[in-house]
């Protein structure tokens, strides 16, 4: 799921760009403070959106520092600190990074992933203290996911379900319970998480068709739409299923946007809307067109 959920940079205001970077660096710093230096290597953009959205429900001011960072000593950066939402996003990022490494190890048996997963054992223990319910839930969904892969599940909806449920759960940020309309917010966040999970799962599956063909890895699209190498090339196959995949992706995006539209955003509005309407759509079109462009 690496790097699918991002803003469309050319359309960001400079101010928004700085804030986005501030959340990103904030997550990195939060990992360093609470987990040590090494897990910082797992840093990615995936849960910046969650931090932005979770922080947007209340109008409490952000704490901003401009400081240097060991990883980029030359340039000062905007960093957000003391934010429970950022800490939570960091926890979730690490939790998923751990399972990603484990999954890589199961797939490829590479030394890198083995070492990574082993090194992250300590991180996982700490996560079990910070967000115990989420850890247990994520672990169960990941094993369901693995089981469906093993069964060569022939339906994209069915095989995406554990990941969508996982995202539904992690989007239900426990801090929402402090808000006035806790039940309503939690419901909306779950819905956003569920559909974002489905979008990520499907776009990743479409993006990986070539690779999965080569490695003979599980890909629900190859099974559901019955790819037959005797009759068509991989690119023809991608072209054949493209419209259907696109219809699904657009429905997920409509639901995500609709859900976010019902959350009263006290801050980060421009950034969140940029990700929703520009970033996610751009990524969708890039990946859908990727296949077609090569086919020409």
């Amino acid at each position, binding site marked *: 799921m690496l790097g699918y959920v991002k803003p469309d940079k050319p359309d960001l205001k400079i101010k928004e760009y700085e804030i986005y970077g501030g959340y990103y660096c904030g997550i990195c710093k939060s990992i360093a403070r609470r987990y040590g230096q090494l897990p910082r290597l797992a840093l990615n953009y995936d849960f910046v959106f969650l931090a932005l959205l979770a922080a947007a429900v209340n109008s409490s001011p952000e704490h901003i520092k401009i400081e240097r960072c060991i990883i980029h000593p030359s340039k000062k950066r905007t960093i957000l600190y003391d934010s429970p939402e950022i800490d939570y996003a960091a926890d979730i990022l690490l939790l998923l990074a751990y399972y990603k490494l484990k999954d890589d190890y199961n797939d490829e048996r590479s030394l890198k992933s083995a070492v990574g997963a082993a090194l992250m054992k300590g991180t996982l223990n700490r996560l079990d203290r910070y967000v115990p319910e989420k850890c247990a839930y994520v672990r169960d969904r990941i094993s369901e996911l693995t089981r469906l892969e093993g069964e060569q599940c022939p*339906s994209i*909806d069915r095989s995406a379900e554990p990941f969508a449920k996982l995202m539904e759960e992690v989007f239900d940020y426990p801090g929402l319970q402090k808000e006035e309309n806790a039940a309503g917010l939690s419901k909306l966040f779950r819905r956003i998480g569920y559909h974002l999970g489905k979008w990520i799962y499907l776009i990743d599956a479409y993006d990986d068709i070539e690779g999965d063909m080569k490695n003979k890895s599980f890909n629900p699209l190859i099974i559901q739409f019955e790819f037959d190498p005797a009759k068509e090339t991989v690119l023809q196959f991608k072209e054949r299923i493209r419209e259907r995949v696109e*219809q699904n992706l*657009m*429905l997920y995006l*409509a639901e995500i946007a609709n859900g976010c539209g019902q959350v009263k955003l006290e801050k980060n509005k421009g950034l969140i809307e940029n990700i929703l*309407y520009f970033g996610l759509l*751009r990524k969708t079109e890039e990946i859908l067109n990727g296949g077609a462009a090569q086919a020409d």
Partner: protein
Amino acid sequence: MQNPYEVLGVREGASLEEIKAAYRELVKKYHPDKHQDNPLQDLAEEKLQEINEAYEYLMKNHGKAGGYGGRAGSSSGYGGYQSQEFAEVRRMIDRGDIIGAEAALSRSRNRNAEWYFLYGMLMLRKGWYDEAISNVQRAISMDPGNMEYRNAMNSIMATGAGYRTQAFGRGYTTNDELCRLLQCYCCADALCDCI
């Protein structure tokens, strides 16, 4: 009258809150104050009227019927030739009782067009859009004249298209040279920006 779901840009079977939220958004957009002394004034008023009608219809009928059946002169849709067998399933889907409806449908031996349609609506409720599309498509191919099924399909498609329209309305552009250039710039930039 047009399909009220389409007018409000929500999917068939949307919840009351979603309908209300969509309605509020649209009223803001087409409010006469916003279009005073402007050539779009008449158009906006007309549109607002449509929106109000659609909203009233959905508020009145929400929870009573399974959704919007094609009317406008057609005799199909609700109260048309729907079987009694599935009336309870329709009520369950409306209430959001997904588990109950799924159980009732899987018990039924009568896999006719309506069965596939309702199964599709159920999948729609669950967020399983791919299954929804293929089941409603199957219902349509079994009973091509049924407007209820066709309307449902159109409204599913309209939801996805609605998102894209919104994005374009907000200034999303494609295939623009500058845009591509900036994208490349961003890729290069990202290399030194992230770890």
